[in-house]
């Protein structure tokens, strides 16, 4: 089986995917449609396609990642590309090479697609300006993580049939979260009502201007929610710097069945992973029948195939 949506029905007009910012609702929907088809293809026995045969995809990760990197790798391989993984954190940075030099070096090897994760906001865009291939942002600092937002949207759409009009709550460390930023932009573009719940210490300044309603209490923020997205809280932020302790965080900002009752009965529970069970989410809630956390991982591969396939259109046009 091949991906059904033809290049004629949807054309992705950009060379890169650096963020959700700048995409039109139609482009987002087009990518989600492609991803829907990819998701079906991934459930077949034979998952291999040849859309990207002969193309080279390099996964360039300046920051450790397990699931995003393997998801991109699998997506590229299923579309027939040659995929190479590079973890730069351990080699070039220590030798003092700059991001741009690393990019130029890789560019000289003539890849077709670079998938880049970097710990600094804006670094992927900087790199994209210096290379002649397509670049996908796999997460830059606390700025954007567009494929995560797309896979979240796909998961929501497949379960709820729509995104428009839904109340989506994003809860946790929004300050440091690229997932939250990309999601807020995408969900607003598709007409959802977005809320943020976090202690003030984990909110970006002027967070309400990002397009979300701000709550500092779960009791208020969870009322009537259709979707609850929990964010990961890094360990080093839990002991008195941003939050007093794990037990206090879990008591006031962790999702347990008691707080879950405030949301709609059929609310979806989401988490971009990796989870801290007992910190931001109760173990039983993570495994609840309303939890779609595993489906998010499945949709991750589909969404990444969709964007790679969209790039394939450009590659053929050259």
């Amino acid at each position, binding site marked *: 089986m091949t991906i059904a949506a033809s290049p004629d029905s949807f054309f992705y007009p950009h060379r890169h995917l650096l963020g959700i910012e700048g995409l039109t609702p139609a482009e987002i929907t087009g990518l989600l449609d492609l991803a829907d088809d990819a998701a079906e293809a991934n459930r077949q026995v034979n998952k291999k396609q040849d859309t990207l045969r002969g193309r080279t995809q390099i996964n360039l990760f300046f920051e450790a990642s397990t699931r995003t990197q393997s998801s991109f790798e699998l997506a590229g391989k299923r579309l027939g590309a040659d995929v190479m993984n590079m973890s730069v954190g351990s080699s070039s940075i220590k030798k003092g090479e700059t991001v741009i030099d690393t990019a130029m070096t890789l560019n000289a090897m003539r890849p077709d697609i670079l998938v880049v994760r970097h710990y600094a906001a804006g670094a992927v865009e900087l790199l994209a300006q210096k290379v002649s291939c397509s670049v996908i942002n796999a997460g830059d600092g606390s700025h954007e993580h567009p494929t995560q937002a797309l896979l979240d949207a796909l998961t929501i759409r497949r379960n709820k049939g729509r995104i428009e009009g839904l109340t989506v709550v994003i809860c946790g460390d929004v300050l440091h979260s690229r997932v939250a930023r990309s999601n807020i932009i995408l969900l607003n573009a598709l007409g959802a009502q977005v809320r943020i719940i976090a*202690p*003030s*210490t984990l909110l970006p300044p002027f967070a309400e201007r990002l397009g979300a309603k701000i709550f*500092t*209490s779960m*009791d208020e923020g969870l009322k009537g929610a259709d979707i609850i997205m929990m964010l990961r809280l890094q360990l080093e932020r839990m*002991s*008195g*710097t*941003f*939050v*007093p*302790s794990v*037990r*206090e965080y879990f*008591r*006031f900002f962790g999702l347990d069945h008691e707080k879950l009752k405030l949301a709609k009965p059929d609310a979806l529970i989401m988490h971009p992973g990796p989870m801290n069970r007992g910190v931001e989410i109760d173990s039983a809630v993570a495994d609840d029948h309303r939890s779609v956390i595993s489906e998010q991982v499945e949709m991750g591969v589909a969404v990444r195939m969709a964007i790679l396939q969209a790039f394939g259109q450009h590659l053929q046009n050259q």
Partner: protein
Amino acid sequence: MSKTPKATLAKEHTKIGLKPGDKIALINARLIDPASGRDEAGGLVIANGEISDLGPKLRRNAPDGHEVIDCGGHVLCPGLVDMWVHSGEPGFEHRETLATASHAAAAGGVTTIICSPETNPIIDDVALVDFVERRARDTAIVHVHPMAAATRGLKGEEMTEIGLLKEAGAVAFTNGASSIANARVMRRMLAYARDFDALSVHNTEESELANSGVMNEGEVSSRLGLPGISKSAEVITLERDIELVALTGARYHAAQLSCASAIDVLRRAKARDLPVTCGVSINHLSLNENDIGSYRTFLKMRPPLRSEEDRMAMVEGLAAGDIDVIVSSHNPKDADAKRRPFAEAEDGAIGLETLLPAALRLYHSGHLQLPALLRTLISNPADILGLPCGRLQAGAPADLIVLDLETPWVVNPEQLHSKSKNTPFDESQLQGRVLRTLVNGNTVYTLSDHD
């Protein structure tokens, strides 16, 4: 986020602690309710530990079946709420326990004391707040509410579990005598406290500037050859804190101002409608640096006693309403801690028992009207802390005092109820004294019983 409703705190305490007194009538009194401005002859009836009725009609006639207490025409008003008290328990029981502090409080007309977390161990954990509350319930004769440390170990580095501590009963959060030096930590602490509608109570002192100072920096310190603490040390950190309050929106109470320029800072902050209030200790309203004389260590305290101009500014600030609260800054120290060269002696003075009589000096001298003065000792602190006490009205807790405004007396440290005797008012002539103190309708102190 305030999961702790304001009124339940003290009510719960009432339930588990002091048993409510029943069916008592206080007649022939001058009723003063500083919150409403009521000042009239009348009487008051207590049922189940609460005020059930009051007014002129009860001046002469008590309802049937009530124990009658004749106030002899003296003032009957709510008991005092003292926002800054060191109890010594846990860790310094040789100086003061919650029990002895509560006896001193009762004798001074203070029916609610707010304890500093500067004990050993420091009150920075839910279990320790619970400990103080249980000890107070079992041993104290007035209401005791703990403040919790704002940062672990009062080190100014990591914030404490403000949400859980507030649920456990901490009424405010403080870093004790010291400021949180790191502005980033202070900002986060205030931002986090705001989410829980928690009150932050802070002393302000820029530690590097204050350095090893032991008294006010000025002519007197130069003559005595003692290192001074500049007023700027207080004002700089206060200005910083106010700016962070503007940034975060947290409720902030400056615990003890000591100089004129600090009042200016607070006045400007209030003009900006920031959620700020401030207090002053009775010592800084009554004494100045000259009283240190020949190195009297009982007058060594933090913030240090300032100049006479500063003291007068405090009095005027109080009269103008710029200062909201008077505290005793009760800080018991044993003789060994004080009988030392001035620079080596510890800071602090006791004050629970002399707070009200010393404050009455401002009334007798004509600087403040009585209701305005009593507001700063009773209803203002109750309101800032969100406590249901401090009011003469039906339904309010029957925490009351009968106060003789006129009778002069001389302070004899040996007759004070505190375990430690480090009073800066020893041998002072004071005018006005508490005759009777009631907590939850029970008489916990009468003057004749003890003296």
